[in-house]
């Protein structure tokens, strides 16, 4: 895809793509009621509800996605730690999360946690965000761990031989290379997260799927409503992959994808 002038460097072009995708996402968020309202019934009259649902879905994804990235990094580092109890904790977390349905995790966080510890009573939105963040965090952890293991040992030795501390070696040498390796599967996880956020519907969050389902139930017109709902998801995931493609090109100093 050639959108930008050829004389721009690849770094410039990918930065511009990132900015454009971010702007596109914001426009979709704030203006999607407009084009939707132009569509025929029953979508046009419900455009504002759809727009609210889109904003909630994107907010869930961004919130859980960024928290999940931090959780993933922490769990990956813990799983590679030299300290055995830490390795166990990380392994236990990843094992439980990946081995149980996300729907159960969302229901558990909302209904069961407050029973166990009343201070953990949260709003439906906050509760769903937490469950989604810990869920995607477990998948991110394995991806990031794979990236860390893929960095050649010589890189670590070179950094240590220069006198860098372990933390500095991680921050400036190992992690940037691991992140680049892990980026495509991380994006997969976030795209999956965007779609999985529809399960927040089960605890009453008014996100896109919930909105669509309610309108469909009220109007008895499942075909246009569910097609519109799916189309909006498709639009969101497309914008998201455009953004991540640009990030990948930004990191691609070797020019594999010039």
């Amino acid at each position, binding site marked *: 895809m050639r959108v930008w002038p050829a004389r721009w460097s690849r770094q410039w072009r990918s930065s511009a793509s990132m900015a454009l995708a971010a702007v596109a996402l914001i426009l979709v968020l704030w203006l999607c009621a407009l084009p939707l309202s132009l569509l025929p019934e029953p979508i046009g009259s419900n455009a504002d509800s759809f727009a609210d649902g889109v904003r909630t879905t994107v907010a869930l994804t961004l919130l859980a996605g960024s928290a999940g990235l931090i959780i993933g990094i922490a769990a990956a580092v813990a799983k590679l730690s030299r300290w055995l109890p830490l390795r166990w904790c990380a392994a236990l977390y990843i094992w439980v999360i990946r081995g149980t349905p996300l729907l159960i995790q969302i229901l558990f966080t909302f209904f069961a946690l407050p029973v166990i510890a009343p201070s953990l009573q949260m709003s439906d939105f906050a509760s769903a965000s937490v469950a989604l963040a810990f869920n995607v965090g477990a998948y991110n952890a394995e991806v990031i761990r794979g990236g860390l293991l893929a960095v*050649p040992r*010589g*890189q670590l*030795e*070179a*950094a*240590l*031989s*220069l*006198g*860098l*501390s*372990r933390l*500095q070696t991680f921050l*400036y*040498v190992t992690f*940037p*290379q691991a992140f*680049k390796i892990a980026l495509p599967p991380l994006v997969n996880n976030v795209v999956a997260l965007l779609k999985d956020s529809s399960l927040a519907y089960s605890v009453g969050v008014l996100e896109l799927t919930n909105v669509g389902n309610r309108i469909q139930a009220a109007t008895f017109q499942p075909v246009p409503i569910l097609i519109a709902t799916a189309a909006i998801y498709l639009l969101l995931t497309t914008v998201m992959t455009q953004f991540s493609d640009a990030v990948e090109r930004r*990191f691609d*100093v*070797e020019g594999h994808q010039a």
Partner: protein
Amino acid sequence: MKSAAPPPVPLIVVDRVNKRFGAHHVLRDVSTAFAAGQVTVILGASGSGKSTLLRIINRLEQQDSGDVVVDGIEIRAGQADTRRLHALRSEIGMVFQQFNLFPHLTVLDNITLAPRRVRGTRREQAQREARELLARVGLTEHAHKHPFALSGGQQQRVAIARALAMQPRVLLFDEPTSALDPEMVKEVLDVMKELARSGMTMIVVTHEIAFAREVGDRILFLEQGQILQDALPEDFFARQQDPRIRAFLGQVAR
């Protein structure tokens, strides 16, 4: 045969160092010393413990027993004082067979990373010094390239500049030309010769016999984890008595 004169001011002292990898006894009671300003070339068949000795000096490997003292910084076997360890490593530069440049950083950032993060040198000053080092290894115009865009010989010269940027007391070379295409060996050896002439303390593991003969102040020959001979180059190459070493020299000269 006379052996090399004992070094006057030992910069590095290796005292009865042992190292095993499983059942394999890689270094057996190795004791030696390296003087400041001296170029020591370590020769020996593969598996004789050359690289392991080098890697124990800057603690990329940990010895099972014995002491290594570098410039007064002593680290015993089993000791894990991380601050002393980093102090030790920043005094010792290392050049690897596989270069090990950081692929995600430009040449300039490869060189300035450690001075900035370890020494706290300001960015502008670190870059100015890096450019001087690049000029010294003949790569001024490549400062903003990434390692993948350079030839093997150029990458190894950047790796030498990167090690020099920490102003180490000693430079270790672990088979620096073994991974290079033949036409690139000379450019790296030329840089190393220039370094030797400037008085840099160097310990070089290599199979480049001509380099050892021309630049070395002293030859250590390792066999099966022990120092079989410690000699001046002229004695080592011209008046070699030991049949095993003669056989080795015949092999590598071919």
